[in-house]
């Protein structure tokens, strides 16, 4: 049973690493991509188009990783079940805040995914909006990691 719980935690941390690392990677690629006119059609400049292609690949991975992180997050909670404190405690309040933040991440991320799909389907250049979306995602995920740290060690 201890090995199973260790596996659950490993998948949870690895999933979070994919989410945060992927968002930071796309953000970094957006910052390094060459500038150019926004009205230039997509697929005319490979170096400029790469961040959007990476973003689309990341979005497929993102939702798989999110599913695993939520699954293993609930598994973690079940594993520490006798020690789970109620909503009236400091830990319980932090956990409630984290759950609300997870809801915000899910909703905001679906909007971001749909924006990426729309940019690709309509061949419209995202300009600086793409990098901003992934910077915001990475920043939001750092806050979630900090909340998880507080819950685990606070």
């Amino acid at each position, binding site marked *: 049973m201890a090995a199973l719980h260790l596996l659950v935690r490993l998948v949870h941390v690895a999933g979070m690493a994919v989410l945060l690392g992927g968002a930071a990677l796309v953000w970094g690629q957006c910052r390094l991509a060459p500038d150019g006119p926004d009205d230039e059609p997509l697929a005319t400049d490979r170096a400029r188009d790469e961040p959007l292609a990476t973003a689309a690949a990341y979005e497929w991975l993102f939702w798989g990783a999110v599913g695993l992180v939520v699954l293993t997050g609930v598994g973690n909670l079940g594993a520490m079940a006798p020690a789970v404190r109620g909503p009236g405690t400091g830990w319980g309040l932090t956990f409630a805040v984290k759950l609300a933040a997870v809801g915000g991440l899910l909703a905001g991320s679906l909007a971001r995914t749909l924006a990426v799909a*729309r940019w690709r389907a309509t061949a419209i250049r995202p300009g600086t*909006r793409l990098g901003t979306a992934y910077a915001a995602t990475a920043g939001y995920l750092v806050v979630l990691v900090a909340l998880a740290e507080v819950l685990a060690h606070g």
Partner: protein
Amino acid sequence: MADPREVAVERPSLFSWAAGSFHAALLVAVLVAVLHLSGAAGDLLGGVGTLPGAVVYCYLWALSAWTTDRALAASGVTPAAGVPDRRGALRAAAAWGGVTGVLFFAALFAVAAGLLVAAAGVEAIGFLLVAGVIAAMLAAAVGAVVGVALALLDVALLRAAVALTGDRRGADADVGRATDADSG
């Protein structure tokens, strides 16, 4: 520039994979939040067990991904075309939400019924049939309501996505009409 309404959609699309995963994750997060706020999270989640819990979640995830894909295919909603027919989209969401509710319930019921028959014998089958049919109808109704609620949320997030892209062509039926009026 390509007309967003004429773009071919591959199935399963990124939209259906993302929305299906979003629905499953959000439902579980809301359930955990309700349990936590009621003070029952520890006892209930501790009693489920890690492996059975993971199997149930994966089943819900796969079911949600499939039914969301079917609902999106039936309604013609895509990130590029927006929502061509809002009522049609909500009807598809209700229908496939009902399917999700019934299939999710059916799997849990089959396991519970198997355990009950093993413990109480075949005499329990008659009761299980009646109870199962009634509960399945209830599951369909709950699934339909949840499906419509999630579809409304999806439409709101699609609007947010359109705002993020900075291009409102074909965003939804209302925007489509406004664009036609402007061009006329």
